[in-house]
């Protein structure tokens, strides 16, 4: 459903994403992990068609993003990490607008929008301007907007930021149920417990390169991790020594 081949992104001399290959099949919930600045957001934004790759190819639902971006994007929903949306639209107007971008309107869209807002406890706020929403409420609205047009693939950057525990739980269940119905979701997160418990497969990216890739069982096997959890595997790959000089820092 998502096929990435030799995907590269360079900013001048700096290589943010370095020739990565990735395949996320239909119906899979895929976790994309890595330390800050590793290239997660850049990769996801390239898959969403926001950033143009320097090299390599991206295929979404079989459609090449470079050759036919409009068709590829029509099969896609994107949830960014920063919830910037139109302040002067109401919640329901925003969802209607997003559906309109995908050329969808009518009773079915209205029904879906109502259901999604109700799911995230935003029903009472549907006719209020977004400017009065809290950070978490905006995030919930953006998440709803990615589902309102029923895309085949959803790309999510840091979905749990700003969400209350109830909304986080709903989102996890929603992700699971959505992929069970044959759709595909790729998401980045720093919450390793969520990734470990939720994802079918994972990739860990460090300095723009994929260091590990597979199911939890495969990761443990490949890294000779025994019964180690994802946190230990992650720290091992990304440099567990980062915390080594804590004493020196705090004593300074």
């Amino acid at each position: 459903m998502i096929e990435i081949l030799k995907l590269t992104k360079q900013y001048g001399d700096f290589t943010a994403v370095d020739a990565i290959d990735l395949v996320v099949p239909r119906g899979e919930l895929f976790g994309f992990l890595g330390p800050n600045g590793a290239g997660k957001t850049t990769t996801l934004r390239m898959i969403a068609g926001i950033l143009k790759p320097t090299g390599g190819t991206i295929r979404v639902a079989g459609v090449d993003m470079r050759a036919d971006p409009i068709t590829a994007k029509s099969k896609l929903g994107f949830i960014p990490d920063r919830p910037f949306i139109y302040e002067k639209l109401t919640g329901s107007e925003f969802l209607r607008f997003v559906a309109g971008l995908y050329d969808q309107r009518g009773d079915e869209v209205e029904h879906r929008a109502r259901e999604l807002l109700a799911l995230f406890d935003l029903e009472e706020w549907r006719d209020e301007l977004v400017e009065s929403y809290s950070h978490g409420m905006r995030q919930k609205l953006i998440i709803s907007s990615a589902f309102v047009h029923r895309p085949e693939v959803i790309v999510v950057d840091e979905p749990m930021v700003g969400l209350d525990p109830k909304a986080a739980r709903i989102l996890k269940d929603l992700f699971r149920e959505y992929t069970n119905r044959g759709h595909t979701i790729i998401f980045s997160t720093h919450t390793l417990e969520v990734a470990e418990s939720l994802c079918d497969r994972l990739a860990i990216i460090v300095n723009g390169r994929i260091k590990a890739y597979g199911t939890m069982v495969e990761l443990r096997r490949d890294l000779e991790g025994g019964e180690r959890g994802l946190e230990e595997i992650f720290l091992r790959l990304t440099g567990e020594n980062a915390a080594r000089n804590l004493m020196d820092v705090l004593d300074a």
Partner: protein
Amino acid sequence: MPEQQDFGAALAPRRSGSQRTVGMLPDPPLLHLLLPKWLTARSRAASGEKGRGARIAVLAVTGFLFWAFVFGVLYRLLTYFRGVQEIGQLLAGKLLGLILLGFTSILLLSNVITALSSFFLAKDLDMLVAGPVDWLRLYGAKLLETVVASSWMVLLVSVPMFTAYGMVYDGGWFFPLVVIALMLPLFVIPAVVGSAVTLALVNIFPARRTRDILSVIAVMTAGGIVLLFRLIRPEQLARPEGFRSLVDFIAVLRTPTSPLLPSEWVQKATMGYLNGEPDWLAMYLLWTTAAAAIVLGALLHRWLYLDGFSKAQESAQQFVRGGGRLARFGDWALKPLGTLRRELVLKELRLFFRDTTQWSQLILLAVLVVVYVFNIKYLPLRGEGITFFLVNVVPFLNLVLAGFVLASIAARFIFPGVSLEGRTLWLLRSSPMRVRDLLWAKFWVGTTPLLILAVAIVGVTDYMLQVTDFMFYVSVITITLMTFALSGLAIGFGTMFPQFETENAAQIPTSFGGLLYMMASVAVIGGVVILEARPVYSYLSAKAFGTVADPTELVLGFGAAALLCIGATIVPINIALNRLEAVER
């Protein structure tokens, strides 16, 4: 498992020898609070932003020309006043008093609005209010910020004004120091009063609602002043038959305009100094009032600020029920556009009309149009010496002025369109929407009202001027094509020089791209008028002398003008399409 670290020692209390003495509370000085502003300004000055040098050069030249103009006009006027026996000096004083009264009103209004941002909405406030910052220091820092942000423009205008007074009345080298001593309290007093008014308002209304109310009040006041000034037709006051006797006139001049206002004290002290009779009372009143205002303002701040700041965090509840008659009509009327374009147009309209800072500027626009039409109405185009040519050339020149008005409106409303999408570009770029559709919506939502306005202005003024049918059609067709060109240029330059990080739409046209847009607009307006001048002249000559105009000349001239307009519409939009496709955010 990584080895468990022992944090006991690391988290133990600070060892002796740390910088702060135990028991003393931190107390960051006022200058420290202003440090980020200073550093920001310094790094902005040092940044190598694209086109910065050119922008500074253009601004410097424009600024110098403006100074020279203000200085030149005042210098001539004051020299004339100085030569008039008895009343010359009184006139100069009266003029200064009126200008300073205007300054004070502008300062007060601008301080009320600036104080809302600096005291209640600024992004650094969370940190400052949460930090161990003394209330008086916070007040001092924010007041200083407010004074600087709201007074610099008045300061710039007052430089050539006082220079003219100083030179005409031989103020000497000491005069600038006197002016500084007089103007400082004049800047401080409105800042304190403005901040106090804002403080009171925020305690009554939520901050966002206060901002809305203030922006509408500000715009209506500014519009009202302009309208009032124009409608009283000040040019009539210059007529000598307007005064019954010299004695009456002098009596009016001697009466202070507003004896209790600081502007009057500045005027008295300035004129007193220039006439060799220093008015120490005025100086004393200015400084004591400023000092007292700061003390009272600080006390009010101590009493009300925290409550107000807390209230400012609450957002104004704004329920917007959909499905009203207007919304249903919009839905129905825009149905032929298809789902995507209809939603894009509706979004543009909703965002505009729900943002008070945007639509309130329409009031100013209305004032501008009224003043424009009013000026045309009172043009002395009847009577002796007014030829057939003059009557028909005025509507032609009217096109130039109308073009400038339209370019300014497009700069304010159409130019920022793409920049304002900066923060939501992720949504538009990740959707299957074509960039062409977005620009299409922005172009038409901006151009349609502009076109109606353009045709209305030109149509009404042509009707008032009673021009010939030929000139009427030339004017209306030209202004229509010119409107499309100005909109196309606004979309093009707005996309080529976007300001994605700026939240305030009113600031976007003042960017380098905005300046280039205005220059391109002036070039197109000038080009169209020059291309049409020849055919219009030959037609009018033929009409006046009863001959037939050369059709080739007419077709060539008007055709070239039309081509220029069409090119100026299409080319920038196509460049914008490519640019927006390449934007990565």
